[in-house]
């Protein structure tokens, strides 16, 4: 050991280990293995055990069983049995439990921090100062929601039994993000921690025993991907919540398609970190430290693509290189370390392979001059220079402490580069000019935007992705809604199959022909368009007679319509007042042609009270016109001197597949909320009553709806629905068809993980405003973007 005199010259830090003796003792007592936590009890660990390794030391610190179907079954049964009592508790009673959890987390904060560090490899600084405090904060916040749920979410009920599958990068924090809102809303839970990091979840289960949470309310089943699949696929699970890779997210989306289970996915990212030339460069350099060199870069929302304006790029990279020299990598239990161990050797190899690919493709890897410990899964932090958009490392999530970099010239180019990704989880924007910063925040496709900061989290601020980063939000009001159901979600009878099957050959049966032939076309890009396939199908009316011909749209028509919708970008940018005026005008024009629509509806045989349907449709247009400039975001109380805004942003292009029943009212009940919030829609009108759509586009044309905002297709519902579901440029899809169709749509939507909303082939009474309109429609028509804006001079 150096003398004090020597240290006075070298001024080195020396070792500063956090003691782990209590945790070691706890682990020793459980060396034989931890069991599942089912119905308030720990099961015997059994023989088929997964070894849990401390990635920093490569020691085995515990063993957990690999849950099989029977374990999952027992856990789901326990959760189901516990549900009625738990859901029936008053908000205050549930709040008391959540409060007790929060309090006990705080009382055991050091224990959890040390255990998390030993299990995951992340530094004690992070578990102590970030993970565990956020866990406590999450339970506090949701104790509040439990208290308020009846007041704040009238008419809502718990979803039921929730299957939750969480990742290894923030083990206890992700558990908190899942369990807290589920319990607050009155659900019960079956949770599977990652097999790499199951320890804090087990300790948490012991804490639940300590606070006396009723048995079965939270069940924890250990295991790997197969165990996760067994939970997601279990017939008695009502909701699946998953955080993890986009690939597994896709598998789950497909697995439970058509099951009617509610789903939220929080997946991967390749988030841009944008440095404008007027940024505080030193501040932004520290931002990079907090972005990609936080948690060894194993962060789904890590700022992993650094985009720097050309004029300051050289200086910024110099500063970054300089900053890397003081990064400390090593024993995560040492309080002076910035970067600990990657979660496993396997993960480390994956990172290293990607870094090799980056170099092979021509980029330069700048690495921190650190000496890595001889043992353990350590990775030197760094950043690439010379990376282009086309490089693998620019596109693929490295999930390690290495960022790519690119430069840009203008703000517009920054937006283009930022959005040049399949993902859309987060973005970080650095500028001292609020005009430029907010412009970027508005134009970046990401669920969370941090201005002059990064990786800021709070239980009150919704977190979640756009695009292939998933759907659903965690935190705040939006997060609670993922765990609540509306009565309309559990609705009635199965929808009958369409009465009309498109026939394109000449129709020789009885016909009720108009004086002059009417040509019903498709409506694409503001123009009436003949079907691409050059085919029409015969429409049969009330009395079984042919009443006309409708265009039979095919895949290419869907493609053209999506293309047209994609170009109508202006609609989302006009003021709410403008959009409201257009919707009012649409109502006005419908009103003028009331008799004509009533007659058409009557002739179609679809509407027993045709005049009422027209009247209700006009009212619905008024209701959404009224909502346009009132369905607002919010400013959320997170940290002091931070404005944290949640903005309801349109998806962009939405697909809508309308049912046969109430063909005018249902079609517009779906289109209106979507366009009210600024989306463009490609709508498939009622398969059996397509002539209503042909009349409707004439009204759209006269109502100042810009071309491309509403595109109407007619034809085979499920053929068109499939193409829409598979289309990667459609961001959201609402489907009102059959049960099988719902499954098909949900499965096919996994390609770009579009947000889907289907009614599982159950009829909805469109006339009833409780079922046919409402804030739920608006909520489903937008995605929440959370913008963090710290301020102060």
């Amino acid at each position, binding site marked *: 050991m150096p003398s*004090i005199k020597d240290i006075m*010259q070298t*001024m080195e*830090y020396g070792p500063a280990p956090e003691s782990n003796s209590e945790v070691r003792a706890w682990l020793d007592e459980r060396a034989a293995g931890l069991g599942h936590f089912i119905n308030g009890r720990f099961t015997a660990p059994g023989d088929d055990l997964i070894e849990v390794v401390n990635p920093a030391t490569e020691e085995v610190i515990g063993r957990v069983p690999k849950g099989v179907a029977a374990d999952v079954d027992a856990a789901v049964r326990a959760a189901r049995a516990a549900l009625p009592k738990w859901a029936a508790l008053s908000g205050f009673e549930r709040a008391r439990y959540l409060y007790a959890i929060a309090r006990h987390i705080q009382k055991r904060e050091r224990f959890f921090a040390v255990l998390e560090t030993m299990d995951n490899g992340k530094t004690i600084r992070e578990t102590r100062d970030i993970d565990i405090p956020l866990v406590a904060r999450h339970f506090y916040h949701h104790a509040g929601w439990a208290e308020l749920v009846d007041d704040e979410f009238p008419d809502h009920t718990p979803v039921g039994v929730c299957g939750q599958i969480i990742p290894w990068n923030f083990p206890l924090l992700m558990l908190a993000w899942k369990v807290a809102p589920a319990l607050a809303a009155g659900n019960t839970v079956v949770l599977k921690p990652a097999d790499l990091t199951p320890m804090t979840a087990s300790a948490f289960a012991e804490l639940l025993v300590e606070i006396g949470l009723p048995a079965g309310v939270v069940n924890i089943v250990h295991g790997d991907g197969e165990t996760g699949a067994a939970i997601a696929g279990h017939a008695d699970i009502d909701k699946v919540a998953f955080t993890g890779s986009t690939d597994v997210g896709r598998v789950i989306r497909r697995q439970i398609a058509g099951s009617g289970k509610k789903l939220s996915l929080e997946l991967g990212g390749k988030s841009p970190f944008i440095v404008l030339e007027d940024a505080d460069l030193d*501040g932004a350099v520290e931002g990079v430290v*907090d972005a990609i060199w936080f948690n060894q870069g194993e962060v789904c929302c890590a700022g992993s693509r650094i985009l720097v304006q050309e004029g300051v790029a050289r200086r910024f990279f110099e500063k970054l290189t300089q900053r890397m020299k003081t990064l400390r990598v090593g024993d995560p239990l040492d309080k002076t370390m*910035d970067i600990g161990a990657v979660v496993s050797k396997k993960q480390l190899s994956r990172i290293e392979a990607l870094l090799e690919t980056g170099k092979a493709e021509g980029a330069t890897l700048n690495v921190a001059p650190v000496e890595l410990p001889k043992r353990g899964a350590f990775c030197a932090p760094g950043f690439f220079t010379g990376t282009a958009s086309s490089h693998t490392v620019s596109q693929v999530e490295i999930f390690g402490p290495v960022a790519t970099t690119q430069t840009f010239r203008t703000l517009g180019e920054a937006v283009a580069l930022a959005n040049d990704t399949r993902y859309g989880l987060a973005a970080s924007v650095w500028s001292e000019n609020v005009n430029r910063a907010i412009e970027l925040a508005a134009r970046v496709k990401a669920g969370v935007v941090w201005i*002059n900061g990064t990786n800021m989290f709070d239980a009150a601020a919704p977190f979640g992705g756009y695009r292939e980063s998933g759907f659903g939000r965690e935190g705040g009001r939006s997060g609670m809604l993922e765990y609540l159901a509306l009565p309309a979600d559990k609705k009635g009878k199965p929808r009958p199959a369409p009465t009309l099957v498109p026939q394109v050959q000449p129709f020789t049966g009885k016909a009720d022909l108009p004086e002059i032939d009417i040509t019903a076309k498709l409506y694409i890009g503001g123009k009436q368009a003949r079907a691409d396939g050059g085919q029409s199908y015969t429409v049969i009316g009330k009395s079984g007679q042919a009443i006309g011909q409708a265009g039979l749209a095919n895949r290419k028509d869907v493609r053209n319509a999506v293309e047209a919708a994609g170009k109508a970008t202006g609609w989302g940018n006009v003021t709410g007042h403008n959009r409201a005026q257009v919707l009012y005008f649409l109502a006005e024009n419908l009103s003028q042609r009331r008799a004509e629509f009533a007659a058409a509806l009557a002739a179609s045989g679809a509407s027993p009270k045709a005049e009422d349907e027209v009247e209700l449709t006009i009212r619905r247009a008024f209701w959404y016109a009224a909502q346009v400039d009132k369905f607002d975001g919010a400013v959320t109380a997170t940290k002091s001197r931070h404005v944290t805004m949640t903005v309801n942003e349109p998806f962009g292009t939405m697909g809508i597949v309308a049912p046969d029943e109430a063909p005018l009212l249902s079609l517009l009940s779906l289109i209106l909320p979507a366009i009210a919030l600024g989306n463009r829609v490609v709508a498939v009108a009622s398969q059996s009553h397509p002539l209503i759509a042909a009349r409707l586009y004439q009204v759209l044309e006269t109502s100042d709806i810009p071309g491309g905002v509403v595109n109407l297709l007619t034809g085979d519902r499920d053929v068109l629905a499939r193409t829409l579901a598979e289309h990667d440029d459609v961001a959201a899809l609402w489907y009102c068809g059959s049960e099988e169709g719902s499954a098909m749509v949900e499965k096919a939507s996994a390609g770009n993980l579009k947000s889907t909303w289907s009614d599982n082939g159950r009829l909805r009474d469109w006339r009833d405003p409780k079922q046919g309109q409402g804030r739920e429609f608006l909520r489903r028509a937008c995605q929440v973007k959370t913008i963090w804006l710290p301020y*102060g001079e």
Partner: protein
Amino acid sequence: MTDHFPRPEGTPLTLDWFEGHEVNLSAAERRAATLPTRRTVKKEWQAAWLLRAVSCIDLTTLAGDDTEGRVNRLCAKARAPVRADLLEALGVEGLTVGAVCVYPTMVPHAVRALEGSGIPVASVATGFPAGLSPLPLRLAEIRYAVEAGAREIDIVITREHVLKGEWAALYDELKAMREACGDAHMKAILATGDLKTLTNVYKASMVAMQAGADFIKTSTGKEDVNATLPVSLTMVRALRDYGERTGQMVGFKPAGGLKTAKDAMNWLILIKEELGTRFMMPDLFRIGASSLLGDIERQLEHHVTGRYSAANRHALA
């Protein structure tokens, strides 16, 4: 480690090194808040760091009731800041503070009291703490203190120049002061509590260095807010930028508000992380403080004995 380096000469006033430079408050606060949570020193390292902090202290008395006797006592403490038996136990000899800092009229007393110790006398000057007496008088005050034997002059800037963005006026004033200092080192007190914004702090730091300051110093100790970590972070970053541009090495002195051993550690961590080890030595780092030493002494005794110490076991400064 304390190899000599050329005295910083300053540069012509170069506005584009700082005009348009904005410091983001929240980002600076986050960095400042996490510096002490990312690093710590324990055991022998802690003792060594505490001793290093002692060597960087400008032991200060700047009160209206200062007398020769008060200054003598302070100087005696400066010569032997830590009890001899503790130093022996720690294996360290010849430890003194960095300087003694007094008002100009106290300089002769301090010079006498420190004779032969090698400890420099620092004098505040230029109408400390407000700095609003006429410039000729302020310059004369510098010369008075230098003639009386002060080897370091802690001057205060005219805050008005910063608040109004009169950079040339600030530069000229500082340049004249530096000239008046002659061979004595000039520590430029920015009175950051009066400047309010970190952006102002950065700009004032740059101008002071361009005018040839040997040290930039946060506060007089008399403003509402004295040395804070975000302000210090901003100043050392300015110092780093200036060093990168000119190759000149300028020292940093936080003053006012550092009262505990923990504070001293935090500031040393700041310096190590942002500037490097070389800048932790007393020729480039000083802490302006009066009560800090007492807390450090108690921590050192705890290190030696394993028992928590009491103030009355250590000589009063």
